[in-house]
């Protein structure tokens, strides 16, 4: 076989394209089945998907929607998913299932709001880092508690993080519905945070400025996006280029082997959860600082942390994967509204599509259809199997006892 640069480039390209083939194929599969469901129940799948494309990616808008606006909405939606996706993916690598990303996010939002209101007079260069840092720390603590419980007495993180999710939810409501944070008009929301605590938008909110045909203020993309992207980079570097990352991955592979290798498993577990919570708390702070500017009842029903689980799984736990999965989920979220407005299809179709994509990725249905799957032998179990790691090795005692 020739070994010149040409064939090597070709095979590298094939590997990259192959890496996309399975997820891309899964998306196509999901859309096909989804279209079938719509058609069977009397809807128009083409109109539905046109609405979805338009709302999510600004493509193919035929009802007067503004493409730039749609894209900006999608970006605002997927920004927090970048960080919460990491918050779930990182513990997966250590064999931990962080269902608590939502609670950690809420903790971050609360901290950001409290600091942003209490110190509202401070100028931006001081207040903004304060609120973001505060949110990050709050999230870290919210995840640290389950981490410590897991590392010391082996309390399963699925239980502890689910419990703390609920506690965080009720804390939000306690604070803003007739509670200490409620704004004076009794509207189940907090006062707005100080002007210095707001993340700058990419486009100034100048009423006179018209961009792409609409006033600049409608494009709500904020600099939190950059923070989110930076978070992905930090995640990738942390996991693959630091010794901590190595320890995390080692613990995820086998706690026993890691311990024999001299790794302090308990410490690794705690640190992993702290970092995960930090990412999620940061996402919560960014939502307040960049989008809402106050704590509202919407946070009680927020599902970002749960979407993050799907995002982390869909993204196969890698930074690039999380980026694309976040964009997909953000686009579906934004597209769902336009789909309903234009085609009358309930945005529940979006959830169906999300589920189908997940199924198809997980099961790699493409294999069954005899489409060549690059670099994967059909009978091997899935290469990333969080389930396997979580429920067996990781649940074993950090201090070395086995079942």
């Amino acid at each position, binding site marked *: 076989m020739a070994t010149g640069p040409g064939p090597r480039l070709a095979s590298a390209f094939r590997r990259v394209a192959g890496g996309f083939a399975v997820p891309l194929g899964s998306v196509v599969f999901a859309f096909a089945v989804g279209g079938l469901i719509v058609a069977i129940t009397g809807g128009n799948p083409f109109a539905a998907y046109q609405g979805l494309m338009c709302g999510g990616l600004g493509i193919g808008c035929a009802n007067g929607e503004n493409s730039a606006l749609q894209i900006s909405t999608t970006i605002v939606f997927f920004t927090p998913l970048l960080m919460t996706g990491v918050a779930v993916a990182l513990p997966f690598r250590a064999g931990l299932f962080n269902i608590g990303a939502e609670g950690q996010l809420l903790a971050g939002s609360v901290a950001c709001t409290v600091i942003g209101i209490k110190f509202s007079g401070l100028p931006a260069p001081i207040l903004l880092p304060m609120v973001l840092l505060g949110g990050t720390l709050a999230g870290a603590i919210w995840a640290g508690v389950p981490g410590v419980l897991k590392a010391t007495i082996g309390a399963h993180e699925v239980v502890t993080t689910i419990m703390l999710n609920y506690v965080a939810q009720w804390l939000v409501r306690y604070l803003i519905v*007739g509670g200490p944070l409620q704004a004076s008009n009794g509207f*189940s929301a907090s006062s707005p945070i100080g002007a210095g605590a707001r993340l700058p938008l990419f486009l100034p909110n100048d009423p006179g400025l018209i961009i792409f045909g609409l006033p600049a203020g*409608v494009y709500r993309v904020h600099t939190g996006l950059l923070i989110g992207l930076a978070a992905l980079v930090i995640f990738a570097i942390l996991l693959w280029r630091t010794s901590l990352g190595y320890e995390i991955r080692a613990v995820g592979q086998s706690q026993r082997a890691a311990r024999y290798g001299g790794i302090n498993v308990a410490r690794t577990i705690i640190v992993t959860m702290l970092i995960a919570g930090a990412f999620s708390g940061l996402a919560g702070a960014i939502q307040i600082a960049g989008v809402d500017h106050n704590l509202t009842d919407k946070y009680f029903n927020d599902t970002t942390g749960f979407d993050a689980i799907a995002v982390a799984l869909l993204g196969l736990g890698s930074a690039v994967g999380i980026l694309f999965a976040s964009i997909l989920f953000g686009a579906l979220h934004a597209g769902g509204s336009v789909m309903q407005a234009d085609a009358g299809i309930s945005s529940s179709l979006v959830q169906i599509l999300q589920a189908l994509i997940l199924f198809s990725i997980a099961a790699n249905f493409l294999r069954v259809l005899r489409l060549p799957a690059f670099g994967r032998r059909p009978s091997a179990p899935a290469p990333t199997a969080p389930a396997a790691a979580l429920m067996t090795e990781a649940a074993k005692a950090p201090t070395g006892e086995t079942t």
Partner: protein
Amino acid sequence: MGHSRLKFLGVAGVALMLLAACGSSSGGGTTKTFKIGLVTDIGGLNDKSFNHLADVGLEKAKTDFKIQGDVVESKSGDDYVPNLTNFASKNYDLVIGVGFLMQTAVGTVSGQFPNVHFAIIDGAGTDANFNDLKHTNVQSLFFKEQDAGAMVGALAGLLEKQGKSKKPAHVISAVGGISIPPVNHYIAGYKWAAQMEDPGIKVLVGYSNNFTDPAKCKNVAVNQISSKSDILFQVAGGCGIGVLQAAGQAGVYSIGVDADQKDSDSSVIASALKKVDVATYTAIKNVVNGQFQGGALTFSIANDGAGYAIDNFSVPADIQTTLDDLKAKIKAGTLTPPADIPA
């Protein structure tokens, strides 16, 4: 061969889009078709409550006028601004937001699109501090739920006083969804009127913290029934149906909310009405007739925007007289139900 598959996908994608574009052709009519956009709150269209009613108003307007009515359900609070902006950016003739949780969103978007008309149910277009921005392109549709609550509260009080309820013990109750103003207004009127008619009455108030899950409201109601309440007022939308059900199973009376809920359970003796459908319809009608006016419009018993209906029950004549009398006094302004729950 990866190339050919990608190419196929690309062609398929373009074909799909072309088909879709051809599918949605714009008809050319001579008279203007008004485009109305309705953005619901997270309860969704099946909330058996005010989102549903707003849609009912829209549907009625569709039959009466030449309008194109599009509805978007907000899945979360994140969707308010994008959903409102979508309609506004397409220059819809009227963009309606449902629910006071959307106040700041309406305030923001109406400021960005001064030439688009907005209406909001249960609130105003506000700034981040919840102060009314008083944009001229926003019509605020307020309701005096306390009027409606007062009427049913009076009925309940009278029944207790005369011993005509099922298990009279001078205890009645209300189950609220969340402790927010629209809910508390209802309860305020209810308690005030009941205490007025039956001074020895005890009014229990509980919250389910949920507007959608009937089981949660049922449990709170069952508790209240155990504490001897025999008239239960539900103020919890779709969740509140569970209150009605609990009352039915315990053989006591219940009171519905927002819409006439006489068919929801046989225990329903009355419903406190909030005519969101009328308000929505009115807002649309004004736009169609070119009579849109910014500012606040209040729907209360005085203009029949709030009221009550008797269901599954025949009211004794003397009680009906008292109720009519109360209604007249509230209309005239001599008696005013409070907006906040009295002690």
